[in-house]
């Protein structure tokens, strides 16, 4: 791992119990400025509890954390240094977006004039400059999320927590919001904790990942490290899926079945048309390193036969596979 020199969030063995039921069993991780951390876990894994502890809404049963050098024993000081978009943040209906952000700016200690200027700038940053003077009650879900992000940035936070920011947004809205998340990290140099169920989006924007299961950290590191480990596993798992254009399915199937390392080819039922499941010959020695070019040779055969390849998935090669593998059967 590269040398980290600006840690803005450090959690050390955070634990939380609700009566006899443990919700968090020793959460430790760190986040650097300018990086995005994906915070993952199935329902009930302890994500919300962890976020609420880190944002000082809840007190941990034990453990501590630091935000921009400020210890968890100084919650008010921590709140000055964080920005949060909770999962289901409510918005007052009778204020404009501009008034809403200005109000929170003032609560963070800005003067009225400063808070207004900040609100104008932030609304522009999040793409709401045209609707800043409209009542929040008239905003769409996506606009409200943007407004929530503007509110979260009003104090120029060192760490921004975003809990399911893309929930309920259409694909375009999701894409725009993720671009905004990246902008927060890259341009504003804030550490971003992104809590999401949409693993594709986490994979696409996050630099680091922490996966929780039943209150425990089951994987952590850079996204590449976590997925890379899974890819190595996948290569030893002897399975892949290929999607070809529907008219070429029969031809592709015949071609694949004729290849030396292929055991069988099946139609992948229940998925989009054109997907074929390919089972490969198992390596004679499971302990030996798998052939890294095996998938390339199969793809090469299809390309040479001029069969249009629309997609390729290797089992375990995605964050989703890692997530399912690590959290399988552990949802309480």
């Amino acid at each position, binding site marked *: 791992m590269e040398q980290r020199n600006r840690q803005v969030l450090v959690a050390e063995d955070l634990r939380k119990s609700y009566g006899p039921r443990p919700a968090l069993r020793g959460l430790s991780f760190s986040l650097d400025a300018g990086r995005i951390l994906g915070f993952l876990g199935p329902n009930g894994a302890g994500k919300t509890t962890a976020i609420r502890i880190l944002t000082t809404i809840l007190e941990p049963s034990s453990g501590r954390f630091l935000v*921009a050098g400020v210890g968890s024993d100084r919650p008010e000081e921590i709140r000055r240094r964080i920005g949060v978009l909770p999962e289901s943040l409510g918005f*007052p209906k009778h204020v404009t977006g501009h008034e809403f952000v200005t109000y929170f700016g003032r*609560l963070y200690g800005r003067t009225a004039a400063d808070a207004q200027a900040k609100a104008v700038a932030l609304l522009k940053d999040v793409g709401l400059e045209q609707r800043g003077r409209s009542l929040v009650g008239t905003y769409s879900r996506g606009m409200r999320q943007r407004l929530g992000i503007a509110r979260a940035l009003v104090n120029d936070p060192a760490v921004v927590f975003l809990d399911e920011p893309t929930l309920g947004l259409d694909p375009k809205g999701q894409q725009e919001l993720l671009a905004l998340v990246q902008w927060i990290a890259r341009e504003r140099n804030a550490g971003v904790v992104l809590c999401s169920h949409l693993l594709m989006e986490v994979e696409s924007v996050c630099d680091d990942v922490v996966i929780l299961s039943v209150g425990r950290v089951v994987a952590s590191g850079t996204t590449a490290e976590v997925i890379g480990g899974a890819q190595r596993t996948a290569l030893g798992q002897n399975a892949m899926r290929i999607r070809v254009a529907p008219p070429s399915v029969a031809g592709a199937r015949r071609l694949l079945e004729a290849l030396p390392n292929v055991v069988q080819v099946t139609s992948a039922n229940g998925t989009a048309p054109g997907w074929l499941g390919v089972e490969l010959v198992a390596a004679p020695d499971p302990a030996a390193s798998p052939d890294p070019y095996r998938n390339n040779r199969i793809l090469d055969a299809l390309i040479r036969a001029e069969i249009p390849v629309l997609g390729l998935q290797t089992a375990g090669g995605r964050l989703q596979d890692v997530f399912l593998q690590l959290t399988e059967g552990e949802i309480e």
Partner: protein
Amino acid sequence: MSNAQVANDSRAPSSRSGAPTWWIVFGREFHELWVGGRALSLLLIYSLLLGIQTYVFASNSELSLIPPNEMVYETLKGAIAVGLFISLIIGADSISGERERATLEGLLLTPTSRRQIVIGKFLAAASPWPAAFAIAIPYMTVLAQGDEVLRPAILWGAAIGTVLAPAFTALGMFVSFWCNTNKTSLFISLGIYILFLLPAQLPGRAQTGAMGSLLQQVNPMASHAHFLSKILVNHRTVAEFWTWLLAPALLALLIFGLLFLYASPGLRLEAGRARFRWSWARAAGVLACLALFGSSPAMALQTAQQPLQVAIDLDYKVVKASDHVLFNTTLTNNGAEPSAPLIAAMNIINLNAKGDVVDPEDWSPQRTQYTEQLPAGGSATLSWRINAILDGDYMVYMVVIPQPAGREATSHPVASSGIHLTVTPFTRLNPGGVLPYAIGGPIVVLVGILLIYRYRRREIDAGGAK
């Protein structure tokens, strides 16, 4: 993490912006309450109720026999009761409602202290009371018909309401503090309000006697109503009945202590409060509130005993029902020895009803008066007041009773000459004259709602509030 260097933050904005945080929270909450329309809707209902009550007073032939001071008293009592209900339910919505609407979390995530959030919310939630009382003043004015009761009614209504309305707001907030949903909070608050009203619904006998009196005195709703009735209707003095204001004052102190000292620092996302850290100052504050509240019944029961007086310097008088008559009596000791202590008692006889005795309780603040021994040749002057309640022909006279020397002694009461008092019928209110007020009040509030809506619309069209 060992090779890491934790970043020291230099971006956190300063905590001082000139305006205190509670003021900023108050501004937002006030805007939400008034511009959002909740307060105005409640005030519209309130003004409708007052309008109906006023019209009923003016049009009902039975009720119109009530003199102006009683009508003003009843209107003031109703205005305070409904005003307190509005304060209670707005308070009950203030925290649990924010939890339900998921807007509280955003507020808790700011570096604002929990207590300042609660103070700001409290001030906003208490803001409808002055408006509610202002709405009641025209109704009381029209019912008073120029009677001098109006001034003390406004004064005492403002004073008592200004203590009780914030107390009820704080009570609603305190309930709201411990509730996750508005439904629960409003239900509990409504239950508390009904409990406060309940003693007044007990049978007449249950309201008298030691227990009944205690219940009335410790109940802030009943005790303030009793105080107002004695001051405004019976023209009694504040010195006699100030103890009836203890319960409202102590309720306010207790609930403010609980809300601001105990609960507010622990405001959190879920119902209830975060772990409480006792300090000597907090413990002392809470104990002081409890001690004050606990002592209220005992203090309230210490009704001051007033010395008694009697006098006659009037032969006859013609007055209108609801007017009053003032006169003096002079007691003179014509004997050679000092007199015994003297008791002067007022009697009123209805000459139209075959000599029925009129209960002077309703007619005069002084039924009997007591004076110490008079030296030989000495005299004492006592002042009296009679409120002409009902029209008719009356005789008012005094009886002076020397205190008997012992158990086996008696004395000879001496009767005074009488005052022939003729009370002419009360000038009834013209229901048609009251109607503009009864309808006008709600219309004024409605116009206020429309003006605020228009102002807000223009403000938004012009680019939002500054």
